[in-house]
């Protein structure tokens, strides 16, 4: 065996160009289907784990997939907003803790998530540096968000519309970074969190501006206690201790928008009762179990993956046959060499062993390269499916 390995290695090393081509071909043959399988299974695991940890979601009727992806992964198309009264409806039902989610804007190119402190407790998110949200205009950064933005406590980050077309009433607001969360291994790591009220300010529902009662130039008209400002009134784009008292909201809070309500029932019975409340024929909202929605979505992904794997398998088989043909043809070129070995005294088994060792080295080399490629790309695989499919 040792001698066969020695001869095989010498042969492959001497014809290194040919060997390298074969090794790389085989490596790709191994890497592509395994990488695809790994990509899908890892992403599916990550998606499913997040969904399984989110009991119920209430949102506007429409695509349940959009609702789940937006509320849980902060990606995909934004569903129609629902009013704050839906948060109160869930809370007042007594069947679940209601956690509002407002996911429409971005801050520093990352999703801006408006919510309440209950969200951090529910997800087990802890502040690693700095402090928690205290006042209007504060934000905390996910661990990777902080790395990507290069920001920490005391810094500031500016909000932006979700898309360039989303300009209605949306002006940049400078948020003060209060803290950075510890890594959680999920989408929370790449988000910027603020209080739901801060999100409403970003949306233009709440604002702060100079005091019109004392403004010499900003008054358009006065009718009793009502003062209407003109276009010269300056709106604050940064919330500071000096101007925070000027911030206020117009309209009825019950109608303020949220993207979804994360409902956390204490037990299965409460969950069933809450779901029952959304089954009426005139119901304008939907309640979904994220894990079920994800399962349906992933079953489609796995079906597609099956076809892709089949196609890759056929291509792989063709490549394998071609490689085998190259190997067999090379045996013809080596006929004199192998005949010499036989004449000198090598048995057919010994010669087969020699050739098997050559194949073994090629497969080993290919497997090593494929494993290295998988290790190198493994980090990139996480979340790639999510971005590819829903980003």
């Amino acid at each position, binding site marked *: 065996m040792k*001698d*066969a390995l*020695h*001869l095989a290695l*010498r*042969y492959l*090393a*001497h*014809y290194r160009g040919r060997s390298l081509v074969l090794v790389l071909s085989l490596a790709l043959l191994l890497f592509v289907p395994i990488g695809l399988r790994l990509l899908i299974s890892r992403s599916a695991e990550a998606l499913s784990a997040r969904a399984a940890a989110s009991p119920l979601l209430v949102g506007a009727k429409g695509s349940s997939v959009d609702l789940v992806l937006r509320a849980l992964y902060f990606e995909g198309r934004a569903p129609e907003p629902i009013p704050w009264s839906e948060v109160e409806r869930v809370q007042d039902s007594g069947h679940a803790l209601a956690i509002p989610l407002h996911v429409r804007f971005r801050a520093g190119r990352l999703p801006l998530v408006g919510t309440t402190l209950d969200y951090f407790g529910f997800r087990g998110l802890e502040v690693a540096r700095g402090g928690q949200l205290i006042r209007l205009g504060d934000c905390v950064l996910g661990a990777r968000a902080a790395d990507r933005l290069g920001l920490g406590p005391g810094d500031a980050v500016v909000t932006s519309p979700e898309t360039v077309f989303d300009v209605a009433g949306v002006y940049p607001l400078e948020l003060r970074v209060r803290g950075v969360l510890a890594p959680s291994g999920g989408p929370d790591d790449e988000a910027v969190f603020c209080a739901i009220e801060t999100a409403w300010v970003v949306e233009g529902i709440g604002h702060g501006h100079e005091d019109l009662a004392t403004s010499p130039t900003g008054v358009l008209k006065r009718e009793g206690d009502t003062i209407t400002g003109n276009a010269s009134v300056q709106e604050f784009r940064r919330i500071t201790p000096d101007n925070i008292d000027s911030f206020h909201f117009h309209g009825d809070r019950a109608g303020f928008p949220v993207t979804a309500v994360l409902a956390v029932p204490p037990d299965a019975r409460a969950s069933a009762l809450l779901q029952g409340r959304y089954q009426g024929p005139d119901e304008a909202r939907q309640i979904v179990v994220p894990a079920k929605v994800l399962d349906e979505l992933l079953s489609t992904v796995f079906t597609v993956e099956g076809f892709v794997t089949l196609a890759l398998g056929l291509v792989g088989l063709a490549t394998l046959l071609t490689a085998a043909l190259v190997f067999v043809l090379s045996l013809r070129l080596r006929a*004199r*060499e192998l*005949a*010499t*070995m036989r*004449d*000198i*005294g*090598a*048995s057919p088994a*010994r010669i087969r062993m020699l050739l098997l060792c050559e194949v073994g080295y090629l497969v080993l080399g290919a497997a090593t390269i494929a494993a290295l490629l998988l290790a190198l790309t493994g980090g990139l695989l996480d979340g790639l499916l999510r971005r590819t499919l829903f980003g």
Partner: protein
Amino acid sequence: MQVAVEGLRFGYPDEGFVLDVPGFTVPSGRCVAWTGPSGCGKTTLLRLVAGLLVPDHGSVSLDGRAIQAWSEARRRELRIRDIGLVFQDFALLEYLDLRDNVLLPYRLHGCLRLDAAAAERADALLERLGLADKRHRRPEALSQGERQRLAVCRALVTGPRLVLADEPTGNLDPDNREKVLGLLVEEVRRHGATLVVVTHDQTRVDRFDEVRDVESLRRRPEAAGRTG
């Protein structure tokens, strides 16, 4: 090692060639040249003696042991232990360096052990045949004469008792023919082995103990047939 052939008959049915040899003996330790025109059966006879072919009738005996009845495996072990082969086209492995080429028999059969003594024998042979300074180079770096000297080293490294050389100088220029043949005979005599050289070149046979025309060994010479 004594070579004895008796009542040997071997044919290539598809080619209509039949080699029919009543009998002859090559005494142990002798250096013999088998000559004859192309196609007279020299190579076939050599391969029968080496156990690479099995006669249809008759026997080939080495030191009194009729090898035609032996199993393939036993004949392989005989070749690797006791027979050194030299080929006209050198049959070197281009991907091995000179030292590995010489030691090749040790890597082809479990009955030989590649140890320090074998390596020393290989180095000594390379030294004597003037190839020591190139021992770590590949055969492609050698001249034709050097390549055949390397093939001679490989044939002798296991200390065979019989060396069979098939047209060992057929691909060499006149100068190298003389040198290589001289070295081959000298080394075989040094080892005390029996040497059978097949050649159609009758001008350089004076250094052999005996020269036999294969046509004369045959019962019924054939004009057409296998290249010899």
